[in-house]
């Protein structure tokens, strides 16, 4: 085999690798599906026969690592499959995604963990890192086989969109998972307070006559679990944190040295509750969109490092699940294809430096999940995302990649377009203006 033919050179690109603080113009060499070196723009010596890709001055960064994705497979393939999710991910520059265990059956069996990893490999487009169920069937009653799932390759443990409500069970889970140094991920919403609700308690929910969920439901769950993390010395992560109060609790816990981390998702820093407008079910999410003060607090927590990662929180819904009155429509929004561009709005607005924003989408979630993805280091898999940070476009729900169309950003004008995505050196997405 001729090794030179398997080589690719990316030229005329701005290389950004937040894992190493790298941000400069340069060239990147890929050989055999892995990164073989970085050099200066004018350097000579590309392998003979190498493919040359002219980036046109765009940014080349590690493929994004999305730490929270729901796919419909197995059990809900009508919403999304591994393949349709992989296509949407590739269009969004995502090359690694952690998938939630609340499928049917739930990922509470080691065989399913292996199956999901293999399904990702089969697509050739994305690495799937499966979460293991924290409790059997994600029902909150009995602990799942955390050790066996961990051994099979589950990257962390969660009950997905359901909070583990039982305080004793949460204590047991955190304690037991500590034996494997496994990360426990909690949906921070006190379920009894949230029961029956569909919008954040407040003026808007009152006007619309929608049953409300108090924003405090998040802080109450976070406060409880932080105390349990302290008690058990477990590793705890809160997903899609959306309130000022919740973030303040996490900030204080980090300052005390607790092993606690958190992520948020683009709707919570780019939209506020007014996006539900006249009962727009695409903007019905879990947790619900918050008031403007909370949105600003999320932006501030991104900037000051309290938030460790940005995840798409991709939750595909079938049209019939959303074409319902607001309170009974399924919660969730798609997010794979818009993850980068919505995050870049924070960069364009001056709230985040580019390298920080990309760090929240690459090496920082990878580090939380103890994945080797998310960097341009020599020898790392050539998972790459090429994007033009200035290219403007408008989100149109019915033109999104993937099966589901339920984006809360429908109609949003964005700057920043993924031009191409490579998985292990192989092109898996190329943008066309058509």
């Amino acid at each position, binding site marked *: 085999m001729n090794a030179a033919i398997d080589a690719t050179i990316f030229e005329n690109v701005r290389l950004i690798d937040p894992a190493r603080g790298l941000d400069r113009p340069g060239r990147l060499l890929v050989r055999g599906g892995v990164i073989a070196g970085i050099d200066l723009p004018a350097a000579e010596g590309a392998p003979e026969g190498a493919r040359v890709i002219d980036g046109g001055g765009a940014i080349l960064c590690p493929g994004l690592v999305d730490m929270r994705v729901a796919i419909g497979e197995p059990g809900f393939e009508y919403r999304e499959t591994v393949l349709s999710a992989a296509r949407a991910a590739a269009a969004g520059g995502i090359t690694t995604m952690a998938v939630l265990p609340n499928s049917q059956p739930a990922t509470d069996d080691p065989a399913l963990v292996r199956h999901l990893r293999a399904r990702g490999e089969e697509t050739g487009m994305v690495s799937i890192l499966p979460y293991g169920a924290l409790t059997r069937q994600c029902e909150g009653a009995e602990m799942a086989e955390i050790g066996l799932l961990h051994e099979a390759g589950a990257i962390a443990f969660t009950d997905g969109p359901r909070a583990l409500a039982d305080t004793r069970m949460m204590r047991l889970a955190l304690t037991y998972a500590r034996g494997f140094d496994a990360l426990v991920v909690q949906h921070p919403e006190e379920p009894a307070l949230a029961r029956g609700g569909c919008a954040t308690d407040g*003026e808007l929910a*009152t*006007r619309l*006559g*929608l049953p409300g969920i108090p924003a405090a439901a998040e802080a109450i769950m976070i406060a409880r679990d932080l105390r349990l993390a302290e008690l058990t010395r477990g590793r705890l992560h809160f997903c899609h944190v959306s309130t000022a109060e919740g973030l303040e609790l996490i900030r204080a816990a980090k300052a005390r040295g607790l092993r606690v981390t958190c992520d948020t998702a683009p709707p919570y820093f780019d939209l506020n509750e007014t996006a539900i407008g006249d009962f727009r079910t695409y903007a019905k999410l879990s947790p619900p969109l918050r008031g403007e003060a909370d949105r600003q607090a999320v932006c501030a927590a991104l900037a000051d490092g309290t938030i460790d990662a940005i995840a798409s929180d991709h939750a595909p819904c079938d049209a019939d699940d959303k074409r*319902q*009155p607001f309170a009974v429509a399924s919660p969730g929004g798609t997010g794979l294809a818009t993850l980068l561009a919505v995050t870049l709005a924070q960069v364009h607005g001056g709230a985040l430096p580019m390298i920080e924003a990309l760090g929240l989408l690459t090496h920082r979630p990878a580090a939380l999940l103890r994945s080797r993805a998310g960097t341009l280091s020599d020898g790392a898999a050539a998972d790459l995302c090429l994007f033009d940070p200035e290219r403007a476009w408008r989100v149109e729900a019915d033109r999104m990649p993937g099966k589901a169309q339920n984006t809360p950003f429908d109609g949003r004008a964005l700057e920043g377009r993924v031009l191409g995505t490579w998985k292990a050196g192989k092109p898996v997405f190329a943008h066309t203006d058509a």
Partner: protein
Amino acid sequence: MNDAPRAAPPRFFAQHARHLLGVQGMHPSRIEPFLDLAESYALMNRSRKTPRDRLRGRTVINLFFEDSTRTRTSFELAGKRLGADVVNMTVASSSVNKGETLLDTAATLNAMRTDLLVVRHSQSGAPALLARKVEASVVNAGDGTHEHPTQALLDALTIRRHFGTLHGLTVAICGDVSHSRVARSNIHLLTAMGARVRVVGPPTLIPGAIGALGVDVHYTMEDGLRDADVVMMLRMQRERMSGGQVPSAREYFRFYGLDHKRLAVARPQALVMHPGPMNRGVEIDSRVADSDQSAIREQVEMGVAVRMAVLDLLSRAGDAP
């Protein structure tokens, strides 16, 4: 004396919105034509001389996903008194929950060439969802805990007939405000027309953010009713409460039921209202409900007149001036 008809001038019809989904944000200049026309229909109803040709050839479907004999009958009478072909469709909400979406229903109704669609649904926003997909004009006949615009209009008409105006009156809305679409629509409409609105009830039944709607909040009847011109009682919707918000009906009546003693702190001859059906002995004492101060039966009468006005005006929305 001006002999001109009291109905709004033709120019209004062309400008009028096609649907009536709620009264939130509605300007007095849009509210008053409904009230004025309803006033004239109220008089015609009493003299049994209604214009039977007004909606001739038009089809009105009363699409009720939730039981409501009173409201449905009121809309049915309103349509028939104007000569419309009125059809009642009662759809169990359960069949919708089983997967038949509202939009399937919309497609069916479009195929039937309906002119006016009166929708009652247990979910807030359901009529708005339908309105986006049907060709007919949609009237919200009550959606979840969101709005009940014709109830607010009929309440406003009833009050206006007694006081001549809504401006400057103090109206106390009492009881289960959290679960009440009647309360929301009345708050929007009465404040828009210049009334001062108070809400009164136990804290568990008053939304925490209700003050943002421009009302004063009181947690005792004695405070809330003081010097009120109108006392509007709400039905205690026990079937909607998940439990635990009020300990018992007996305790509720003890602290929040309207009896003569409590009514005495309001203005003399304050008007007592209730959207019905009443739970006698729970939110209202029978003697108050049946007293001279009660406008409850008049509300029912004005309901038909208001619904006639609504069907009439919406059926003409978009007509050339």
